[in-house]
């Protein structure tokens, strides 16, 4: 049992299978929303699933001059990092499956893995498009990663803990931390666009410029793993923001105390799913409303307009806590 339970958590729920299933659904919502914004019909609900099956069935090619080991391992590292991080994020109750003081840092670190894996996969593909895309991945990382981390520190300082579960539990009284850290919330949302490499920050992929960049040599099931990694990262990233700023599974007016435990869990999951979909709605809206900007514009803009507001918000929270505490 001691081996089976963690395996179940990683592979089935809330890990791999759950992430994939929910990720495919969210991806459909995303595509449908963008289609509606663009005055199109959009795909049927099973389309993302069909795309996945199709990719899995396709021929798997490793370029002759690529580094075989790095090329093969990179997408798996990305997916593994994301799937592992969900364990520390509260999904149905204010407390996650596993929690310890400092798991926020672990999750932020694990969510950076896909970017590094993408860089390595692209760099070792031995393709000029992939090489340029890989360097763009790293340049972009400097643009969004620092503001994202600073933005996550806002609620951490406000709640006085480095554990996501602790931070979520601190919001159980109905006082969501978005009220204390509105700027941090905005920064985290925009940095998430950069993390997920979506328009206007889809610079490393940029299909009309560098033909999907680091992924250009990937085919078949390896490409499918990349797609799954970024799908899962969408879910985990959105769930992390919901947990830090929007009270996670908490919703005002719901009598959690009066419910049996199993009902609380289901209601909590539904509430969180709605919050994730709202965040995805924002991502889709941004994608439909904007053009892709250039890498140097992105880094400059992010450090200025994301970094500084996140710092200011953090400073204000720290100052207020110091005053109240003293």
């Amino acid at each position, binding site marked *: 049992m001691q081996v089976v339970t963690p395996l179940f958590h990683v592979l089935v729920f809330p890990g791999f299978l759950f992430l994939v299933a929910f990720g495919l659904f969210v991806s459909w919502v995303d595509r449908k929303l*963008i289609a509606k*914004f*663009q*005055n*199109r019909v959009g795909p049927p609900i099973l389309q993302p699933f069909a795309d996945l099956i199709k990719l899995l069935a396709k021929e798997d090619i490793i370029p002759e001059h690529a580094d075989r080991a790095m090329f093969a391992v990179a997408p798996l590292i990305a997916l593994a990092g994301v799937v592992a991080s969900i364990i520390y994020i509260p999904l149905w109750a204010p407390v996650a499956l596993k929690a310890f003081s400092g798991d926020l840092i672990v999750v932020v670190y694990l969510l950076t893995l896909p970017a590094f894996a993408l860089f390595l996969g692209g760099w070792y593909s031995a393709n*000029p*498009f992939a*090489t*340029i895309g890989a*360097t*763009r991945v790293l340049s972009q990382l400097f643009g969004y990663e620092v503001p994202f981390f600073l933005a996550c520190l806002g609620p951490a300082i406000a709640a006085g803990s480095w554990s996501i579960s602790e931070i979520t539990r601190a919001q159980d009284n109905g006082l969501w931390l978005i009220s204390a850290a509105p700027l941090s919330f905005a920064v985290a949302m925009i940095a998430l666009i950069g993390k997920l490499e979506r*328009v*206007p920050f*889809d*610079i490393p992929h*940029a*299909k*009309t*410029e*560098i*033909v999907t960049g680091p992924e250009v040599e990937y085919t078949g099931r390896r490409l499918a793993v990349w797609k799954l990694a970024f799908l899962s990262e969408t879910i985990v990233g959105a769930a992390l923001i919901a947990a830090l700023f929007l009270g996670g599974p908490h919703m005002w007016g719901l009598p959690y105390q009066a419910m049996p435990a199993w009902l609380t869990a289901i209601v909590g999951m539904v509430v969180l799913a709605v919050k994730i979909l709202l965040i995805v709605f924002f991502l889709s809206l941004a*994608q*439909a*409303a*904007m*053009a*892709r*900007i*250039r*890498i*140097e*514009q992105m880094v400059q803009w992010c450090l200025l307009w994301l970094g500084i507001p996140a710092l200011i918000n953090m400073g204000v929270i720290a100052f207020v806590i110091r005053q109240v505490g003293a």
Partner: protein
Amino acid sequence: MAKLSFPVGPQHPALKEPENLRFTVDGELVVDADIRIGYVHRSIERSCSERNYVQDMYLCERVCGICSNAHTLCYAMTCEKLADIEVPERAQYIRMLMHEFERIHSHLLWLGVAGHEVGFETLFMYVWRDREIIQDILEMVSGNRGHYAMTTLGGVRYDITPEMADRIREGLKVLRQRAERYADIATTEATFLKRASGVGVASGEVCRSLGAAGPTARGSGVPFDIRTAFPYLKYHTVEWQVRTSELCDVLGRTLVRVLEVIDACDICLQALDIMPEGDIQARFPRKVPEGEAIARVEAQRGELIYYIRSDGSDVPARVKIRTPTLANLPVSLEMLRGGQIADIPIAFASIDPCFSCTDRMVVLDDAHTGEARQMTWPELVKLGRQR
């Protein structure tokens, strides 16, 4: 980072037709650019001197899928000069209407593609949705959405009835409003401005010295338009102006094109009102007198020139086509050099390139001396059919 050779094409998502651009890049900077054309050569010029004047009409229509009407128009004008035929007034107005309809559809198509090149998919979808209005008009008038086959030697093939005219007016009014909206988006949308403003710069001087044509030159403040410089059809009877922009970048070219859509709507609306009644075709002889003639029209991409030499038979001795993309390629390389990799698609697309019209072929006997040789027709046929 070491300098990298970076190919774009012959197969690349940014290109709609096969062509090979070679870049030397240093990180994200483009150090040098070179182009190789010749992937879609179809020996249309040579084929023209194997067919009679009427058959060539069909061939010239197929030089380009987007400016097909400009090609037949220019070809017919050249033939009419050779045969000294006067085209009826009404036919000239209908030709002008078709010419401007095609400009509207082509510029809107380009605007959508420009949105796609900078990752602004919503602009692409909206513009192409609105482009359907002009496509419906074209279909109503000619029966076709592309390759309209409207022009014929000595006139046009179909008349525009009063009911059609009313529906055209309705459609154009909507389109004019939409074009104004897009002009507004192009000048105010922050992310689009970031990608268009100051990108792909070519000064007016560079454009003049490298012989740029059409909106590419006008976007750099060169007020050259065949419609006013060498008037043809009935452009002198309607009120409009040559649009230029002093911005010299992608944004300038975008604005020129969008404003030209608005102008084209105005030209058409005026032309529909002042069009006289009458014949739409003059009789054209089977054989054309000996001689040579040249005609030029302002196609949507720039100046289009046809040269035809006749030996007195029913088959032209030589047809020479100079398409606007060939004129714009040198200046496009100038735009790309010193820019960034991210700007390659939009900067190159800003000349609205069309490669299948541009490709020409020279057979070299000796690659070192550059001595050229004429291919015979059977040789060409064999080359075209071999696998």
